[in-house]
């Protein structure tokens, strides 16, 4: 852009635009700020009216998230030995004692296992397929690519019925493997489309040079194309991970115990008389924070990822 341009917006219009967008940003971030701050509120503070903006921070929500608690009779409560740890103390302050760990840790770990497992598999299969679609003459290429994309249009519930029946037969219900395969099948369309775009951008000449140097096609793929596509593969992987991480419909229908991920679990965190909001907020914070960080890391490739590579900027 030249120093002086007639199309450059005026200073005043920039200022107004900046103010309006800042205002929108503040409003749109408010619910997220509220989630994070509610996680650090005590039970009474979280449900006070008017809603408290300033409050004494408490780790009650986080302690409640990771523990199960029981009430004991007042007499017995008096006779208990003094609390040993800081989290014991927080629970005592609520008039209860710790009964054991909660399931949150397990559910979070399931999210990690299923998320990373399916991401790895989607990227592995997706890179191979994308390379083939990008470089070779595959018969019915366009039809196959469209077929891969169209699997994304199905409402999850539509395929959930037979998958539920199929998994019941095969013993895959409520297993990590079952969920990994399922999420891979959902993510692979995104992986193939995005990766094909990234590989298309790598000049063919690099591989041709390698082939002339005596590399086999497979070696050229591994030693020339893969390193060149590394950024694309990494950002595709993050998109797959975020999808698997956030998925709810299949998780709630097909898992109940062993393989249940965090999204169906967090809404079931209840305390005395309804949801334990500080604990829900604490769980949500722990669960959402990695995605927020990834989003900031991904910002350059965001558009591409959310449009299946249709818009590349």
């Amino acid at each position, binding site marked *: 852009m030249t120093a002086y341009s007639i199309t450059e917006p005026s200073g005043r219009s920039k200022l107004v*635009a900046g103010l309006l967008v800042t205002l929108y940003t503040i409003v749109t971030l408010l619910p997220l700020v509220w989630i994070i701050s509610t996680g650090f509120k005590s039970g009474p503070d979280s449900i006070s009216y008017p809603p408290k903006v300033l409050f004494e921070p408490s780790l009650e929500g986080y302690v409640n998230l990771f523990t199960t608690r029981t009430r004991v009779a007042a007499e017995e409560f008096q006779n208990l030995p003094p609390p040993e740890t800081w989290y014991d103390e927080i629970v005592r302050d609520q008039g209860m004692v710790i009964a054991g760990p909660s399931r949150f840790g397990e559910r979070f770990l399931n999210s990690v296992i299923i998320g990373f497992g399916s991401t790895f598999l989607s990227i592995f299969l997706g890179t191979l397929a994308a390379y083939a679609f990008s470089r070779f003459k595959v018969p019915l290429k366009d039809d196959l690519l469209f077929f*891969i994309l169209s699997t994304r249009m199905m409402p999850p519930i539509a395929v959930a019925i037979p998958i539920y029946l199929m998994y019941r037969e095969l013993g895959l219900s409520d297993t990590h493997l079952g969920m990994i395969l399922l999420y891979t099948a959902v993510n692979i369309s995104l992986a193939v489309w995005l990766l094909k775009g990234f590989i298309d951008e790598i000049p063919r000449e690099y591989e041709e040079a390698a082939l002339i140097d005596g590399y086999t096609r497979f070696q050229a793929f591994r030693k020339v194309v893969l390193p060149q596509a590394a950024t694309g593969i990494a950002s595709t992987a993050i998109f797959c991970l975020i999808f698997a991480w956030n998925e709810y419909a299949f998780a709630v229908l097909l898992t109940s115990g062993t393989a249940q991920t965090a999204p169906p679990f967090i809404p079931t965190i209840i305390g005395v008389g309804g949801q334990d909001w500080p604990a829900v907020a604490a769980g949500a914070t722990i669960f959402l924070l990695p995605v927020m960080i990834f989003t900031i890391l991904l910002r350059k490739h965001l*558009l591409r990822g959310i449009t299946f590579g249709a818009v590349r900027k």
Partner: protein
Amino acid sequence: MPNPIDAAARATPDPLARRIRGLSDRTIAWLFVAPTIFLLLAINIFPLIWTVRLSFTNYRANRPNEEVEFVGLRNYIRILTDDGIWANMQTTAHFLFWTLFFQVLIGFTLAWLINRKFKGNDLLTTLIVLPMMLSPAVVGNFWTFLYQPQIGLVNYMVELLTGTPASSFSMLGPGGYAPWSIIIVDTWMWTPFVMLICLAGLRSIPDYIYEAAEIDRASKWRQFWTLTVPMVLPFLMLAVLFRGIENFKMFDMVVLLTGGGPGNETLLASIDLKREAFEKWRTGYSSAYAIILFVTVFGLASIYVKALNKVKER
């Protein structure tokens, strides 16, 4: 100096590569594509065909030992003549229309403002985008807290701004606000999506076009309607396509916010489908329901893509 051991290692192809060396490009192509196709056939197409087959039966998944009868088109006829299902379709259409309307309106406006390239626009764009990347289930669940009539932030804000007492209305309860509550949350989550795509559209317009218009003394208003809007339109239509398909399938966020209630006020088709399939266990019936929904979204999307391609060609 190249290390001789390294060089030797590089010269000796590993066993896998040796086996693959002799393969033609065509074989490699198939070898690379086959696993993906196989996975999709096993976990997408096979289940879909199974759904079609089930849709002609009276099968119930909770009674696997009962005899299964083929009932022909009975499930389909029942669904298409059921007033309740047409009401759910209208609820879905209402949700689709207003979410798309607000997201396009706000998303485009934001993109247009951000395109003034004021200082810090990159940072704000990144912050605005955050909600759409988060788990709709977890966030949807938290919004029920924000919508609490007694203690929630939303009602408090309304009281602060308009003076309406906070506990006099309930966004998720009876009173007709619930369909708008889900529209608000969806708009909050997905406006950034439309915004990002519009922004890409706006940035794809070269400066010289505006310079030429400026020289022709076209007014800003005229430039906006004859240059900006037509050039962003294909992008905007693409955003609408994506959001349309997603919101037609909408399940997670709404199921946690309202669960379809109060009454059936927010009973979107996919939530109703889930009830039929996994609560009432009418497997055959809900399979037919699923097929009808899939055909609808696929059909609408195909017509829309044709229109989109026409706009692109212009």
